[in-house]
């Protein structure tokens, strides 16, 4: 369902060209849980942004749920993102000015979900991550672990086909990290495709497959579970 073929991404400034992805070819099947690992600057985040349609490849082909999307307009990519993807970020990226429930609701706003249904689904998603009692709080009033739970709820509330998680446990202590991993694993088990960038070998172990990147190339793939 996600297929990259010879995808390169070059960042150009006036004087420097940076090759962030170098002729990458890979595939992620539906319902698969994939971990992406590698040292800083190896292209993990660029890969994730490309998979998440936040960035377009400089060259190569990207098939996203059966559609070629490498040359699509911003508007079309936004619509696809809206329909298919949920994000979880290392730094949570909750909107400070909105309450917990309102933050989760944002994921439904642009999908034109009616407000009654929005409220119901937001409540369910928050209950599922154990944050229902904090719905009216603001992000600053929560711990890091709690914030990331809310971010997971936001990613799940729209019933996405794909969850992209960029070091979701990077800013969390062990206990909270484990909790977030459990949520992502549960999502994968329910049929959602999960691609997660991580530095943690332990958390990568929760995935079915690990891809290692170095200097913009895939250097190894490890199949952990059948």
């Amino acid at each position, binding site marked *: 369902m996600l297929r990259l073929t010879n995808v390169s991404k070059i960042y150009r400034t006036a004087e420097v060209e940076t090759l962030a992805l170098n002729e990458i070819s890979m595939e992620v099947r539906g319902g698969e849980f994939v971990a992406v690992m590698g040292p800083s600057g190896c292209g993990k985040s660029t890969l994730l942004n490309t998979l998440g349609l936040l960035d377009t490849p400089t060259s190569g082909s990207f098939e996203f749920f059966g559609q070629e999307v490498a040359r699509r307009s911003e508007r079309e990519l*936004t619509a696809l993102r*809206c329909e298919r993807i949920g994000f979880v970020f290392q730094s949570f990226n909750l909107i400070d000015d909105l309450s917990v429930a*309102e933050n989760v609701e944002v994921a439904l706003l642009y999908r034109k979900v009616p407000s009654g249904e929005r409220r119901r689904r937001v409540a369910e998603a928050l209950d599922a991550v154990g944050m229902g009692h904090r719905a009216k709080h603001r992000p600053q009033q929560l711990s890091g672990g709690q914030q990331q739970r809310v971010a997971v709820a936001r990613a799940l509330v729209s019933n996405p086909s794909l969850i992209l998680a960029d070091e979701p446990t990077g800013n969390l202590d062990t206990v909270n990290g484990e909790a977030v991993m459990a949520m992502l694993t549960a999502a994968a088990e329910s049929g959602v495709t999960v691609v997660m960038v991580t530095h943690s070998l332990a958390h990568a172990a929760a995935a079915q497959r690990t891809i290692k990147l170095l200097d913009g190339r895939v250097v190894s793939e490890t199949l952990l579970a059948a």
Partner: protein
Amino acid sequence: MFGNYLAASIRNLQRNGVYAALTVTGLAIGFASAILIGLYLRHELTYDQFIPGHERVFLVNQLITAPDKPQVDMDVSSAHLADDLKLEFPQIEYTARTAAGFPPTVRRGDVSVSELQFVWADPDFFKILPVPVVAGDAAHGLEAGDDVVLTRAAARRYFGRDAPIGGQLLVDGHAMRVTAVIEDLPSNTHLAGEVFGSSKATFSMLAMLDKAGYTSNSNQTYVRLKSGASAAAIDAQLHSFLDRRVVPQIRKIDPDWHGVRYAMRLKPLTSIHLQPSDGGGDPKPGADVKVLAGIGVIGVLIVVVAAINFVTLMTARASRRATEVGVRKALGAQRKDLIVQFMGEALIYVAVALVLAVALAELLLPAVNAALQRKMSFSYLTDPSLLLVMLGVTVATGLLAGFYPALVLSSFRPSSVLKGGPVAASGGGGVREILVVAQFAVLIALLLAAVTIYRQTNFGLKDATHTNKDGVMMLFASPCTETLRNEVLAVPGVRGAACGSPAAVGLSMSSDMTFRGPRKTMLMYAPVDFGFFQIYGIPPIAGRLPNPDRPGDDGARLKDTAPTILLNEAAVRALGFPSPQAAIGQQVIWHFNPTSSFTDMAQPTPPPRASEVIGVVPDFTFRSVRQKIDATFYYVGPRNDALNSVALSIKIDPVHRAETVKAIDRLWTKISAGMPLQQYFADQFLLRLYIDNVIQGGFIAVCALIAVSIACLGLFALSAYTAERRTREIGIRKAMGASSSEILRLLLWQFAKPVLWANLLALPLAWLAMDYWLKGFAYHVDLAPWTFVAAAGTGIVIAWATVFFHALRVARARPVGALRYE
């Protein structure tokens, strides 16, 4: 979705309280100024529109062209014109005249005042101008010789009640009866007056003018056309009407009438204020459309400056909203969704600003009314058009000012924002810089305009008149007699006293055809008294001043010969003398009238008589320096009639000023037989001619101040933002060895740059605008280079003073803290 946007907007506003307050305050001040300016412009553009049927009402405007003179138009005309027009043109329903002469003394019981608001009017006046009536029948209220109509304010002043119908007033000793009370006139009417006396009174100004007939030009003539009649058709026939009826009349009285050309037209009632006549005759000073346009432009500029502030502050702080934008985009928001959200947020800001602005405008309106001498109201709740315009301007400003920040904010790329990477606010910095330049350009130009108007007003009041009015008091007496003069001279502290004719002190104009050999010229003339020139510090350029010891100098003692005269420099040129010296001892022939009188202006032109030129004085004036100083001659005239002698100029010892003024007051009470005292210091008296300048200058100064304060708000916030954004850079520089003062210089230079650009933009534009404005004066100051340097310097000082606090704070911060910051 709207609720979610609203929540984000309002909480963002709360979280950034100080910045939000600065943004909203700037906008509110801008809007409040725009509201007040708008009210003023509306007031000026709607003169006399409250009068029912105003589109059928006209004032006769005369165009007079004397030989070798530019055409002059006057809103006054001859006393007989009204009746002749009515006879000639069947399309005319009513005609009526008004005249405000020397203020009569009005007395009721203990109240006795010199009624400055007294107007004489013909019986049909209130049929032509049917103003709202409080009591009685104004339309027929001026038919008898003892009828008087009051405004509500005048009724209260004299009678202490609103409807004193039948009440009696003594006007110059004659009993008159109140027939009607009208509502107080609004300030947007050209009409001036609170007490309207019937022209049928035998002692009325109009009755006197009736005797002068076509030689007078001292009353307004109003015309109301019948329904459906065309003013253009009457205009087209006025030329032949003049030739047939008016010119023969003038020739009959004045056979020596030398080719002065007359024309006439009907001026619509609602144009009187906006097209004031250059030759005078309007009951109130008119408006200058160009100045109104300038004020309108300033109003727009202030809103632009406030809107720029808004744009600057919103984009400068845009990076704070980057996460929100990134998340919303990642979760599927299209760019247009975000543009809608941020434009909506801009509308919230402007809506809050509008509410504050309305409150501010209501608070300031009484002061503005007092300063502009207007009675404007701000009744937005009962005036849907006003409300609509206000909302329209607000929404337009919100949309225009909100668009760019929305564009910048919605352009953030989620891939870099969400990783916590640097936020590239696309183009924000450059545009912001340009906007700051524009703001400062506006305020520098306004500063320069205010300074130039101030200089010109001062020049018009002092240097340009070529008189020294310091410590000179003018006392009006009708007439100013030798007895009065001598008694005042005897008061301790009085250094000099001399009578002057209305023409001498700029209250009226008299002209005569003069001859020097075969050369004839129309010259103005003004009777004065011995000592008049000395009091105002006017030295002779050539020859000498009049001397009481020489009988030939005193026109009061001559009957069949004319007194000696003094020329001003313009008259020397007009008569063709090669130099002032060359004129001395020469003969000039004119029509000296030893018995001219205010009460008998219809005397035939006296025979030509020769006068010797004894002196030449510089061109001086008691009028506005908008007009060129007329070629004029002066002579010592009779002092037994107000036409020749009305103003006693008194030079007072500055050391004993207060006691001397009091002593003169006491003297007046003793000798005036109850006549109210009218006295002014000469410089204040002249100020009345420049009141519009003073208002304009003050107005522009206030606007400049507002623009400065709004721009400072913006710059203050911008400097705070820059300081915050550059903390890391400055930390690195300091770690590399930069001192605090070097950093301070760096930051101050950064803020000086846009101001320097602003100067480049503003100074040439302001130069052009003020040069154009000054050309409206016959005598004006030159644009002084120092004012440009000062305006430019002030701009920089203001900018530095505003940013200094933040710059200093950042410059003095310890680098270790700065580096840890990010």
